[in-house]
């Protein structure tokens, strides 16, 4: 049986969208699953919108690009406007309500609104918004255990982020238990 799941993660450049995707993809690989990760790459280096797509499956993966995702992680308003209409009918969207006007959230869709930036600020830095949101995604999808993702941080975090691992572990936990 196929254990398929895909997610588009989107936000401002600098919100750690690509790191969030990498953490998830590495964790899926460690669990012995097939996985693809593809970023949007282009002319904008800073300040634009960033998004990446992660596909997880127990079988070989065809397209690493997804048009109607089964799930999304939306860190800012422009990302909601872009990806909410494309969300699959039974899909789930994790929305950072700190930066998104929740009046725009389509009530017909399965949405998890979480003030990820505010929670991250309380934990010490808004830079952990991504991990709070990823925690909420893990809870909503149940695809991978929280502990597995927390463990993978030690493996994928660049050397100069090592001292922040504990804080990120807490951010994942906060996002997971908030929803």
């Amino acid at each position, binding site marked *: 049986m196929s254990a398929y799941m895909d997610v588009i993660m989107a936000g401002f450049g600098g919100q750690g969208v690509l790191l969030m995707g*990498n953490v998830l*993809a*590495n964790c899926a*690989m460690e669990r012995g699953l*097939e*996985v*693809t*990760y*593809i*970023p949007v*790459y*282009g002319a904008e280096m800073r300040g634009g919108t960033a998004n990446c797509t992660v596909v997880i499956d127990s*079988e*070989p*993966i*065809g*397209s*690493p*690009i*997804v*048009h109607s995702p089964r799930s999304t992680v939306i860190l800012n308003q422009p990302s909601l406007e872009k990806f909410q209409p494309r969300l699959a009918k039974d899909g789930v969207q994790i929305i950072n309500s700190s930066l998104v006007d929740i009046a725009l959230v389509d009530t017909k869709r399965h949405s998890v609104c979480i003030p990820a930036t505010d929670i991250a600020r309380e934990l010490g830095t808004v830079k952990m918004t991504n991990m709070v949101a990823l925690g909420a995604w893990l809870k909503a999808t149940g695809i991978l255990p929280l502990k597995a993702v927390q463990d993978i941080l030690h493996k994928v975090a660049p050397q100069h982020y090592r001292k922040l691992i504990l804080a990120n572990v807490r951010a994942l936990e906060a996002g997971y238990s908030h929803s």
Partner: protein
Amino acid sequence: MSQAPERILIKGNEAIVRGALDAGCRCYFGYPITPQNEIPEAFSSMLPEQGGSFVQAESELAAVNMLLGAAACGIPAMTSSSSCGIALMQETISYMAGSCVPGVIVNMMRGGPGLGDIGPSQSDYFQAVKGGGNGDHRNFVLAPATAQECYDMMFSAFALAFKYRNPVMVLGDAIVGQMKEPVRCVPPKHALTPEQLMQQGEDWRLEGYDRHAVPEPRVLRSLLLKEGQLAAHNRSLHEKYSAMRQEAAAEQVFCDDASLVVVAFGSIARIAHSAVRHLRQAGHKVGLFRPTTLYPFPEEALRALISSGKRRFLVIEQNLGQMVEDVRLAIDGQAPVSWHGILPDLYVGAETLRAPILEALEGGKHV
């Protein structure tokens, strides 16, 4: 080896670099262009660590000519670029073919014509397979579909280049290059060691003329002005190109009892693979034929699938109809061949290929 090494999550572009280094590549020359920039970036740190040489050239013209120079010394060397950059390299690829110099050229295709876009595309099939350069020459063209194949195929690329003293192009696209996937960086079985690769150049490589040891200096040239010289040279090239055909290769999935065989390569083939698997699960007799060498095209294997006109073929490619010509040449009118093209910049997923495959299965449009 007691235990398989860990899988690492890397882009196809990085897998190209790791495969090349493990295969014995010692020189890289390149010029930045999206979507293959991770290749020069990775080489710039990894090659010098291994005692090799990395040069960021002033243009693709310069890069491929540096490749010609390094390759003339029998050193495993490569360059990489994308579509329009490869077009700039074609003259020298022709020189390399003419003067029988081995080298590897990686093309991570983007949309065209002209500057096009930076998205995935298969619009360089003709440029790669039919020889974008001048003169009557042929190059190997290998088509990886996964990051793992990016790693593995670099071994084949260097082995073929040295075995046949000929340029080899590895043809990926923006999906293959930009996508991260788990890769096991282990040399494939039967892969040559870097030393074995280098040994193959002993008879022809430039290393300085020792007049006491050999009668003549070595000259690698493609200019043959004397009467009959070029004819003789091209005759020997023709024999070589005929011998190259034995290297044709393809992957076949569910083809044995298929009523419809989808023919696709590279990233489109992996998406078609998903579509075909889903349709099989729904009881449809469809299969996939994926050439892993585009030149030589695996025409004999494809022809072997024709059975008394009962089988249909559908070519799916992300361009306006290029590989379909080779498929039709191979099938030679013995079975129906239809074509489904995908434009650049348009989303393609397994679900979008379902309808065209079912339509072809039912003998629908025959383009």
